[in-house]
Structures are given as C-alpha cells and as structure tokens.
C-alpha cells in the first residue's frame, strides 16, 4: 500500500557509504546521486538553477556573490518604459518574498553580524546592483516574432563585482529578469541569499509557447486567470490560448450580440467575461510578455451559441423525418449564418489585438447533418458526396471571411481542417492535437507548407497516478520525419487544460508544475533531456513558486519545501 519501491532501495547502499543520511535532511547538496536516497524526500532540489534551462550557462569556479535585499537595486541603462519599470517592481518584490519565505532561515539581522560567507573561499563580493541594459526602445504589444533573447553576466571576467542583464528588446528583459531571480538561493546556513557567478546566453527554441485554458466547461475566475498568467511568465510561456466558449457555456460577453452570453453563459451576470474583464486580462498578459490568442471554435462545439441566434445551428431530424428539437453544428446551408459570422468575428478581431485568432474546427460530428433533409438537398445542389465536404465548405467560408477584414489578421485552425482538405492561407497555422499517428500528422501538415503547432502529448487534463511528467518531458514537437524546412515550420505549441473535471478549486494545482515540462521542452535546447537533472531542478522550481504563493502540487513524490503553501 505504501509503495516502498524495492528497486529504489538498492541505491541506498551506495549512498550509505558516502553520506551520513541523517545529515541530509535539509537537502543542500548538489550531488546528483543524492536524489537516489529513499525513503525520504524523493529528490533534493537543485540550488539556483533556472527553469526552463538556459541555452548556455557558464559557471566560474564555485564562486558566489551575496545579495543584500535592503540594499539591492536594479539600475536601468539606456531605454526603459512602463512595462520594464513595472517588471522591475514585480521582480524586486519576488526577491523579497524569496527572502521572507526563507525565514526564519534568512535572518537579516543575524546576517549583519554573522557574515559567514566572508570565510567562503568562493566569496566574490556583494551584488548590490543589477544593471538592466535594454538596447532599443520598448515595443508595446507582444507578437509572433518578438525577440526574447537576453544575456546575464554575474561577476564574470571583466564584470567583477557587478551584474548585467542585456537584451535588444523589452521581451528579452522580461525573460532575463525571471531567470535572474531564479538564480538566487539561500546559503547553507541560511544566513544570506547567494548567486553563483554566471554567464547566461539565452533564447527560446520555439517562438510560440502556449497554455490553453478552457473557460466553457467550467468558468474560471479572473483571479485564477491572472494567477495562471503569472505562472506562465514564471515558466517563460508567451501565449495564453483562451478557449473561451464551447458547447457547455458562452461566457464571452459580446458588444454586438449580448444575447449570446445572456442565454449561453452558465449565469449571465456572474459567469461572464465582460469587455472590461477581457481588456484587463489582455493588459495583464501584455505586461508579462504574453499574447492572448482567443479561440472561438466553430462549426462544432457551438451548442451554447444556439439559444441566442435562432437558425444558427442545424436542426436534427428523427427517423420520421421531423425536427427532433436537438441541434448539431452550425448550419452552412443558411446564408444568414455567414452574415452573423462576419459580423461576430469582426468584433472578435477588434477585441483581441493579437494578429492570430484560433478558429477551432475540431470534432465536427456528422450524425445531425446526416439526419437533415436540408443538408441532403444542399449537398445535392453543391455536388457534394461526403459530409467532410460540408465541413470543408463551412471552414472555407469562415477563413475567407476572417481574411477579408481590414485588420492584418490571420488564424489558427485545429488539424481536422487540413485533414479535411480545406485550403487555408499560407500564414495560417495548423494546430495538431490528436494523439494518434502524431509523427505522420506532423509530417503531413508541414509537408503542405503550413506553420504548425503541437499539443498532442500535452493534454494535462488527463491525469494518472504517480510521476507523469516524464512523458510530457520526453515528447518533442519536432519528433517526426521531415526536411529541415519542415521542422522549421513547427512554431511550438503547448499544453491544454480542458475543464470537464477542473475549475477554480483545483485547476492551478492540477496544471502546475506539470505544465513546466512542456515549457522547458519548448524553450530549452532540444538536447536538454536528462530527467534526473530535470527532477532536481523541477523540485527547486516547484518550491520556488510555492514560496511566491502559488498552489503547485508535488511533482516528484514524498518530500517537503520547507515553506508549505498557504
């Protein structure tokens, strides 16, 4: 019943000879082998190692610097802007949290008198200033080709006694600040906050790194959406894929068609996102360098649209040939529906500033269309023989509408659209989600020349017992047969949290830190695959974010963080 895993016990032998186990409790040893000690904490956390792992990190001779939080300052060189200033404040308060949550641990008063680090041969002085050098004026909105590269130097050769964060865009500064605070860790005797002298050169492997939240199966509060954006920033995600409406409910409050949420939301006053709410989320995300890509999924997954827009959904027929009162996907035979679609999506592209809109297009079931004499007549008239052609017809009309708006907008569709043969424009993006024949599908879609997103193995709503993160970690978006040009078409992708069994009560703990694994796969070099190294860094990362006040569940089995979530 308690999973004393025998195979693990063998490791204890080696360790017993090397360590006095009773001294391991606080886990301040970097030795990789320590993690094998069981029972007890499954993995001892790493110290001051960033997640996701930077592209390049050099360490210098175990030398360290000490941060004195009351004295520490960021110093802006060259360009700055509100977004950067806001981030500096945010990250300074994160440094303070790292300190206060390490208490009684880091006792500053004691530290003043007991400067034990001074006797550390690696001690290279105090890091009282991090210079923040943004080399170009700020951009306002995060976008598909934003530059997220940055460089960090802490006490490196030629930079003794100082720290420098450099980036050629404000997005790089945001990512670099996150890395910088992750480099901090408490000293062995808890007397201080330390940082190793370091050179980091970092940039993302993929440009599109998204987390999908579904606010239709269950409504998610603004508080939860913001917490999730915080956690995304802590993991260097840069797209919030907002699957905002679906069959179950329509919480998007439309300017032009308020009846959609009046009749389609779970509750028209409490379970809606107002225009103001949405603007707030977009701004909150923007300040963290996160794009908001909204998904309005059609023609399937639209039951909640039906009550507000008579005639929108296909009426289904019973065996006697009469409408049975139920409805199927959007009815493509009704020309008025395309007027509505034109008008509605025109609003949507004006509300969500990102260039990309997710148009869905997944899981269109044909039973209802098959029952309908109107669809049959339409197919005869259009010379269609296959229901996939009906779907194709709808999607083609939809993408033509979205392409017709004056805004330079483009769109993302789920893989079915392409599987069914719809022609989408060349800067459209295809989102692969099915977890069958994944490499073949990736080969197929990229061979057609489409930019591609990948989510197949990252459906985090699917849960199972035990350590499941290794599966998410092993999975790679470029793991398919194809030319280099095909591989380059893969922009990234990310995890999905569909909310059939999840709402504000459990979503954060269920999603995090499991979503940190795709985050590293999408950011770090493809060769970063060592799972025992990842386990230690993940343990540190989870505890680090717990200390910041977020509800992350334990990823690795028995253990502790020292500071528990409250």
């Amino acid at each position: 019943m308690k999973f004393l895993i025998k195979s693990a016990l063998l490791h204890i032998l080696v360790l017993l000879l090397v360590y006095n186990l009773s001294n391991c409790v606080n886990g301040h040893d970097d030795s990789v082998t320590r993690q094998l000690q069981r029972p007890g904490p499954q993995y001892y956390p790493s110290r001051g190692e960033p997640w996701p792992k930077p592209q390049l990190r050099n360490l210098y001779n175990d030398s360290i610097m000490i941060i004195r939080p009351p004295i520490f300052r960021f110093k802006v060189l060259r360009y700055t802007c509100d977004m950067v200033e806001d981030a500096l404040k945010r990250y300074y308060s994160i440094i303070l949290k790292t300190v206060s949550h390490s208490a009684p641990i880091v006792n500053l008063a004691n530290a003043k008198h007991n400067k034990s680090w001074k006797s550390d041969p690696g001690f290279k002085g105090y890091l009282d200033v991090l210079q923040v050098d943004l080399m170009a004026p700020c951009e306002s909105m995060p976008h598909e080709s934003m530059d997220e590269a940055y460089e960090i130097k802490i006490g490196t050769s030629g930079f003794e006694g100082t720290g420098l964060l450099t980036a050629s865009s404000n997005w790089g500064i945001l990512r670099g600040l996150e890395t910088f605070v992750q480099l901090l860790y408490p000293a062995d005797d808890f007397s201080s906050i330390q940082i190793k002298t370091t050179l980091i050169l970092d940039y993302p492997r993929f440009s599109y790194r998204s987390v999908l939240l579904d606010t239709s199966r269950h409504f998610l509060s603004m508080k939860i959406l913001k917490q999730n954006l915080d956690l995304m920033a802590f993991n260097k995600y840069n797209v919030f894929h907002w699957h905002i409406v679906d069959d179950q409910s329509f919480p998007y409050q439309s300017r032009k068609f308020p009846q959609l949420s009046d009749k389609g939301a779970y509750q028209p006053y409490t379970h809606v996102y107002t225009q103001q709410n949405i603007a707030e989320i977009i701004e909150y995300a923007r300040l963290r360098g996160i794009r908001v890509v909204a998904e309005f999924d059609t023609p399937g997954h639209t039951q909640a649209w039906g009550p507000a827009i008579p005639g929108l959904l296909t009426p289904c027929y019973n065996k006697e040939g009469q409408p049975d009162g139920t409805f199927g996907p959007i009815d493509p035979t009704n020309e008025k529906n395309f007027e509505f679609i034109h008008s509605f999506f025109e609003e949507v592209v004006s509300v969500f500033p990102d260039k990309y809109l997710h148009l869905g297009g997944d899981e269109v079931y044909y039973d209802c269309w098959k029952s309908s004499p109107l669809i049959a007549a339409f197919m005869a008239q259009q010379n269609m023989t296959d229901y996939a052609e009906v779907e194709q017809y709808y999607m083609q009309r939809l993408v033509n509408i979205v392409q017709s708006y004056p805004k330079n907008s483009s769109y993302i569709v789920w893989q079915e659209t392409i599987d069914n043969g719809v022609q989408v424009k060349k800067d459209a993006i295809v989102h692969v989600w099915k977890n069958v024949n994944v490499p073949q599908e990736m080969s197929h879609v990229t061979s057609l020349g489409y930019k591609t997103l990948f989510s197949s193995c990252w459906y985090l709503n699917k849960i199972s017992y035990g350590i499941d993160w290794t599966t998410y970690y092993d999975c790679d978006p470029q793991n398919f047969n194809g030319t280099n040009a095909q591989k380059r078409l893969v922009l990234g992708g990310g995890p999905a949290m569909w909310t059939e069994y999840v709402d504000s009560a459990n979503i954060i703990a269920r999603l995090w830190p499991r979503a940190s694994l795709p985050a590293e796969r999408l950011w770090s070099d493809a060769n970063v695959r060592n799972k025992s190294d990842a386990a230690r860094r993940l343990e540190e990362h989870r505890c680090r974010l717990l200390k910041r006040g977020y509800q992350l569940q334990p990823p690795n089995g028995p253990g502790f963080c020292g500071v528990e979530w409250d």
Partner: protein
Amino acid sequence: MPLKLEPIQLAFLVCSFFIVDFSDAYLAPIAARLPLKGTPSPPGTPWPEPMSANFSISIATIGNRDSITFTSNLNNCSILNSAFNRYSPDLIFRDLPVESASGYPVFAGIEIILPSGIENQCGEYPRLALEEERDTYEKYELRVEQDSDSTVTAKIQAWTVWGALRGLETFSQLIWQNGTSNNFFINISQIVDSPRYPHRGFMIDTARHYVDIPVIETILEAMSYTKLNVLHWHIVDDQSFPFVSKTFPELSAKGAYLPELTYEPEEVQDIINYARDRGIRVILEFDTPGHTHVYRKSFPQLLTPCYGDGVNPGTPSPDKHAAYEILDPTKEFTYSFMKQLFTEIKNVTKDEFIHLGMDEVYYSCWQSSPEITAFMEQNNYTEYSQVQEHYTLRHLDMVKSLGAKPLIWHDPLEFGVNLDKDIVLQVWKKNGSDWAPYLQHALDEGYQVILSSPWYLNYIAYGETWREYYESDPVLSLPNITEDQEKLILGGEACVWAEYADPTNLVQRVFPYIGAIAERLWSPISTLDKNRTDDAMHRLDQHRCRLLWRGIPAQPIFNGYCFPQEKSIRRSSKK
C-alpha cells in the same frame, strides 16, 4: 413508515416548486450527442441519502438571518453548544441578507430532544458503537412540522449527542435558496435516519508530505458535512516522523522533515478535540515493524542490520533491501522501546483503538541476516512469517496490556500469522480491481473488518472515478457472504497516501469524491441500484456546491457550475 420518493415523484415535486429555478448546482452534458443521465434533485436534498425521508411540497420561509435558533432539553452541553455556534447564519447564508417571503409560514427554530441522563456524553469522546447500541448511536429523527398556520419548527429527536449532530447537519442541508432572490426555504419533511455502518473513515498520511493543522481542520469540517466519523491519522512512516514524542524527542528532532513540520502532543490533542466537537473519532496509526525506516535517524539499533554484501551488518543489497530495515525482532530493546512509545501514545489518543500498521513486512533483509537465522533456530522457526508473527503477537499483547484495542492492516492474516479474533483488520489489498476475495477471506476467518481496498483516492484517474467508489459495496460485491459475516463489517475508510498529495491538492482531491464512499457507508444498501448512480451524480454535485458554499475547495465532478458563484476559498489559518 414514511415513503421514499421515487424518481417520478421527484419529478412531480420539481414541477411543483413553482418559483424555483434549479441553478444552485447545474451540470452540463459532455456533448450534445451525449445527454446527461439521471434526474436532477430538488434544492435542499441532503447527502448522504437518509434511511427514509418524506418531503412535502409545502414549504416554510426563513424569516431572517437570525431565525435559525436552537433549543434543547439538554442544557450546558459543550458539544451541542459548539454545534449551535457552527451552524451559524454565516455557514448557512454566507454573507447574504435573508428576506422573508410573504404568504408562507415562517420557520421558528429548531429543538433538540435528547433522553435524560446522557449529560455525561457532553464531556466524552465518540467511540465505535457497541453492537447493541448501533441502532441508536448516531440515529436521529428530524421533523419539520407546521405548528400553526403561521409557524413551522424543526424537531430533532436523538438518542446520543452524536445523533443530534448528524441531525443538525441534515437540517442545515434542507435549507435552500430560491434562485437569485434572498428568500430561503425549508420543506415540511420527516426524516428517520441512522447509519448502515458505525465506522466511516478517512485516512490521511502526514509522513510522505506534511499537512498543516488548518488543513486537517478543514478536512474534519468537510468530513462532518459528509457524515464521516473517523479520522485515521497515519502520522509517521519511512519518510518522516512529524509526531513529537515527549519520551523520545529525538524521533521528530531527527526524523521530521524540518523542525517546523511537526505535531506537538498539544496540537494532536487540539485536533482530537476539534474532531470530537464534530462527532469524529481520531485513530492514530504508528506503523511497525515495517515502514519504520525513519527510526534509523534517531534509534538505528531498532532496525534489523541487513547483510547486503553477505559479510558485514548494515550493508544494503541492490533491488532487495536497505542497510537497515524492519524493526529487529530479536532484541529486547525493540520491545521495551515500543512499550514506552505506545504508553505515551495511549495517553495522547482518546480513542480506544490504536492502529498498529503491520503492513508490508518484507523478508529480504531478514533473509540476509545471520542474527535472524540464529533467532529462528533458537525458536524452532522455519518460516520468516513466524518471525513476523513473533513480533506481531508480542506487540499486540503489549498494546492490549496498555488497555488499547488494536486495529491493523490485514497483511499478517494474508501471511498466515495467527491472530486473536478480537483484532480488527483493515482490508486494503486488491488484485487488479478485484478486492472481494481479500474481504471474504478476513470474514471467513471470523475477523471484524474495515474495508479500504476500493477506496484509495490517491490513485487518481481521468473522468468520473467517483462512480466506481460509489458502486463498490462491501456486501453486494461478495456473492458468498453470510448474514453473520455481514455483521463483522464495521465499515470502511477512504485513504489518501500522500506521495503526490500535500496541502496544495489534498482537500480538492478528496472532496467531494469521498462523498460517494460516505453514502455507501451511511445509506441503506437499497441506494445501490446502479440505475441510481446517475441520479446520485446530481445530488453529489449539489453536495459539492454546498461544500464550496461553506468554504471547502471541493473539485467539480462534471461540466457545470454552482450558483451564485464558485467559492474556492480556503479557510484562513486558525493559528
């Protein structure tokens, strides 16, 4: 006998609630082609389902926030008084104003009627009901009656204070809000209720991950809302020893994850009292002779030195055993140490039962040990199970001599250890999904049992896992069970081993799924008609919304929402 409402009557009832909309707990189908099954329950439907209930369509209005007044013929009873404080306007109405609806009789308070001569219970702790008192120990009758044209009162008749607590909980669940208005109602109703089993528990494991005290209190609160009555506290294990022993302070000083992550005896006492106020027993488990690896940090001599290299004591063997494992049954020190430790435990616990563990004793270390071999020769033992038996029987006798009743996992029985018949066995093993043979075996051997096999909530899976918990019945799953054997089943426990659970996800993981188990253990066997699982989904959903309403972050069981809104707040620390 009052009639139980059949679905068709419920439907009639639903239609009869003229002004009610059912948006307090709402489920949505997974897709249009898969409509929801089952019949939604009217608001104010209690969970778990009472033994018998008759709800009239007549309703009374709650006059204002202060209308829920309590009186009792048992005065100055601290347990009752503390319950009256808990079932406060804040619990029932949250921060909403309450407005009387015109044209209805007004609810005028609740009266608890208890037999005279039970005053002493007010200072006692709940216990496992004796066989002859099981029909009355937690029984209550609740009548919401019209006294005159203008007033309605509720009367709870109970035979013990614990029964009164169960009745109060049911009463609190009968009150419902009319949609978005500030009108609250209660139906005229008669309920006669008593649990199917006297032991309805939940096991927490505070060794794999520490659970802070406010979270344990939240769990106890939510347990009382679900009519569970035993907290089985698996307090220490291989990984850590958070219990602070006054006799052997080194155990936690060296064995706790951190000095802050401990439970002082006074804190354990507070939790026991917190549980008692809610009619919940706390059974402490100190697991031996396995699951004791943590003792190596403070008292290494307690553990058997293994000979992994075949020559030297204290050497591990890959894939087989650690350097030191399992209490050393050959040394008197082991027994005298345990006697001192359990003497202290007996003083800390208020329950007559102590859980002694006894699970998962692996022999490979013993097999490597020449000391064990010598011990076996000296005692004429040929099997390692006899070594286990040696320890088990001495330990059980010692604990009994302290005046405690032992409860153990059923492993020794499975290993052929001869146990006294007064030992209560907790059955946890499964073979695949098949657990019935283990339960049947324990019953065939004549032991009283507590069932946990189908109810390990730490084994999470995608989807509606509560259905399997709900449909696992200790009696119906055993085709050959006899009537006498049925009486040996004391109840069951849901368990969460904490490898992957800690305060960030524990409460959400347990509630409301454990409700499925609570109903299995409380409600009559007739509720287990598989066609009714779909109906139960709607009632369980309503219960989850009620838990949210009361500040328990219970997770959703299906698409949908609670009205007015999801309240996933966590109670603030009481420290």
